[in-house]
């Protein structure tokens, strides 16, 4: 695997994470429990779609086959996506959505913070910009997890249920394969495992305040970032996200 082949894969992983999670969050638009949260979630979704344009735009450039960010987003099928499974899981209730967001934001912040010093200047530049957005996302999702976890009996029960459901998907973000080895050797991206201590520190602090308990067990659902096996949910998401470009190929406005 050449440096650029690995870089392309790495950029797909970054861009597909923000694309798929951004789309998921956008599904709340007009449906949130209160107006303020509706706007806040839409802002978060838009930030992530903006990051997607940068990551997938660069991916297309690195690939060198003339594919744009839009081509990559709307003209690939499920098995070509490289997002972690966590990002494609359904929204569930509002609490589950915010729990998923928090678990992702905490990883994203650590990752972007390391990518700021990437040897690949274009990667460092995107990380620098995205980091400001993600710092705010994490603050908001963390506060909401605390507010709902340490809230009423009902909200606490729902948040614990969300954490129990989502936690087995966290491990995939710290997996390492050949792509990562090339990225590490080239000084482009960190060893995913190196992000774990800071991540554990962040989530432990928030869950302690939220009176939530990380479930036992070490089973990790994976297969998203390698593309080996996505969940059934991704295909359903793509049918709605890609519908327009599939029905009217090349449509623009």
């Amino acid at each position, binding site marked *: 695997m050449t440096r650029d082949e690995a870089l392309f894969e790495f950029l797909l992983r970054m861009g597909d994470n923000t694309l798929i999670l951004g789309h998921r969050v956008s599904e709340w638009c007009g449906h949130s429990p*209160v*107006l*303020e949260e509706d*706007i*806040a979630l839409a*802002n978060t979704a838009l930030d992530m779609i903006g990051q997607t344009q940068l990551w997938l735009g660069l991916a297309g450039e690195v690939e060198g086959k003339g594919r744009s960010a839009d081509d990559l987003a709307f003209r690939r099928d499920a098995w070509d996506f490289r997002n972690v499974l966590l990002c494609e899981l359904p929204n569930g209730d509002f609490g589950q959505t915010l729990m998923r967001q928090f678990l992702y934001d905490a990883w994203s912040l650590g990752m972007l913070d390391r990518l700021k010093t990437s040897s690949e200047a274009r990667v460092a530049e995107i990380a620098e910009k995205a980091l400001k957005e993600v710092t*705010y996302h994490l*603050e*908001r999702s963390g*506060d909401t997890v605390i*507010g709902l976890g340490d809230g009423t009996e009902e909200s606490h029960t729902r948040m614990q249920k969300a954490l129990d459901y989502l936690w087995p998907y966290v491990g995939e973000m710290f997996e390492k394969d050949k792509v990562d080895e090339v990225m590490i050797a080239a000084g482009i991206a960190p060893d995913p495992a190196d992000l774990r201590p800071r991540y554990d520190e962040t989530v432990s602090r928030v869950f302690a305040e939220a009176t939530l308990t990380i479930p036992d067990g070490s089973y990790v659902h994976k297969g998203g970032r390698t593309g080996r096996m996505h969940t059934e949910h991704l295909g359903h998401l793509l049918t709605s996200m890609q519908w327009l470009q599939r029905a009217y190929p090349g449509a623009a406005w």
Partner: protein
Amino acid sequence: MKHEWPLWEIFIRGQHGLSHRHVGSLHAPDAEMAVKNARDVYTRRNEGVSIWVVEARHIAASVPSEKGPMFEPSESKIYRHPTFYDIPDEVGHM
């Protein structure tokens, strides 16, 4: 059982040097979330550099039905407007 979040009045400073201006209101469970919600609702288009939030119940207001005694007496006191001074041109805009 109904738990409504309290109402907050939002004040935004548009740029350095200007004063905070009332832009609207929103609901939030506490002051910190009110600032965050204000950021998301009222500064999406780069409108602000600073946010104040005040819980609406802390604002004491004049009573609309008393606006006669409250405001009308000043209508007839034009001498309170210093418009009768001659301002030299070289002073420029005041």
